[in-house]
């Protein structure tokens, strides 16, 4: 009875480690190879379009609304203390340090990560990946690598757009609606936002999240059970695991960057 229990814990542990090992091998196989820019470039373009360009709309709209809501909520609290001129600082810092990278990452996991998993999973289920291998085309380099790079390149750009649009949304509510002085809104913001500490760390966060999400997404697709149910499970797993990983990593990164 007890021995069975310990054995089942061990079996699950071994399975988890095997999964991590397969994921690492996948990344290694996709990335470590002689670069072939001529072949890679058109593939990367296509993926940048479907992963990056098609995500612009959702990122911009949610960035605008989050900036506006942040500004409105901040105004309601700050006006009680007569400190509503600090609104610019509050909006800019919370967007750059936290919401920009994190919300972009969550949206990106839902919008692009799930699509990547479903696409690769269906390729596996319809045996496109096996037929590529039959033709001596390495699916890791032909299918996985461009998707991985497209995700890693586009998410930081999207996060920057999110923050910029969010700050603009904050200005719309704070300055244009609630009537905070334009000059003090921006000068307080500019005095408090630092290039390295805020924008640099925001960028680092979004790069880390991009790698995490894209890796989880392509691995779940590649590792999916090649049935319709397997693909649906893999897609769900991508969104759930990527979101949890982003939130967990965010705490770790914040503790490292701003903890002391």
């Amino acid at each position: 009875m007890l021995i069975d229990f310990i054995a089942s814990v061990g079996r699950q542990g071994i399975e988890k480690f095997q999964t991590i090992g397969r994921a690492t091998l996948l990344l290694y196989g996709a990335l470590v190879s002689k670069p072939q820019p001529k072949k890679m470039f058109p593939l990367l373009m296509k993926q940048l379009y479907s992963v990056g360009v098609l995500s612009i709309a959702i990122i911009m709209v949610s960035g605008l609304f989050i900036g506006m809501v942040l500004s409105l909520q901040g105004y309601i609290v700050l006006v009680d203390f007569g400190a509503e001129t600090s609104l610019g600082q509050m909006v800019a810092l919370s967007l750059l340090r936290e919401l920009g990278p994190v919300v972009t990452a969550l949206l990106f996991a839902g919008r692009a990560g799930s699509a990547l998993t479903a696409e690769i999973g269906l390729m596996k289920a319809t045996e496109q990946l096996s037929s590529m291998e039959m033709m001596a085309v390495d699916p890791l380099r032909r299918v996985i690598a461009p998707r991985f790079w497209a995700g890693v390149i586009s998410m930081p750009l999207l996060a920057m757009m999110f923050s910029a649009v969010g700050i603009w949304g904050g200005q719309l509510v704070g300055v244009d609606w609630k009537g905070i002085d334009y000059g003090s809104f921006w000068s307080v913001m500019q005095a408090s936002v630092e290039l390295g500490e805020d924008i640099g760390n925001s960028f680092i966060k979004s790069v880390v999240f991009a790698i995490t999400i894209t890796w989880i997404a392509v691995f779940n697709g590649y590792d999916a059970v090649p049935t319709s149910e397997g693909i649906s499970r893999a897609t769900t797993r991508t969104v759930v695991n990527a979101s949890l990983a982003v939130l967990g990593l965010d705490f770790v990164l914040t503790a490292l960057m701003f903890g002391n």
Partner: protein
Amino acid sequence: MHQNKKLELWVGTFIMAGIAALLVLVFKVADVQNIGTNDTYTLKAHFDNIGGLKVRSPIKVGGVSVGRIIDISLDTESFTPVVTMAIEKKYGFFPETSSAAILTAGLLGEQYLGISPGFIDDDIEMLHDGDLMEDTKSALVLEDMIGQVLYSIGGDSDK
């Protein structure tokens, strides 16, 4: 071919928009004037109490920020704090009669180091890299002041 061109156009627009957003953040939101470090020289000063002064706190002369605190440590012989400051060379050198004081922005705001430039005379030298500033005033610690006020009130009631 036509299809490919359209795709590349979109991706190019996307990347340019991302970089434009980054530039907006850097130049509009963080208001970066000059990237890279300016030429600075360092001065040191001993204080009795630095209060809430921190590394990276600004150094101001008449309200204009001229540099930053780069190090705070304790002199192990006299057990007094030593503050090392980096001052930008473009603001020039201060005479050795200048004094440094730890001040507070507003009543409860951030603390910063204020330098009052001293008089210049024939036998007065300028402070150069690594020199020690002699004339310093420590931070006003609010708790100490409240303590003194309470003590003096208590002293009055005895009479």
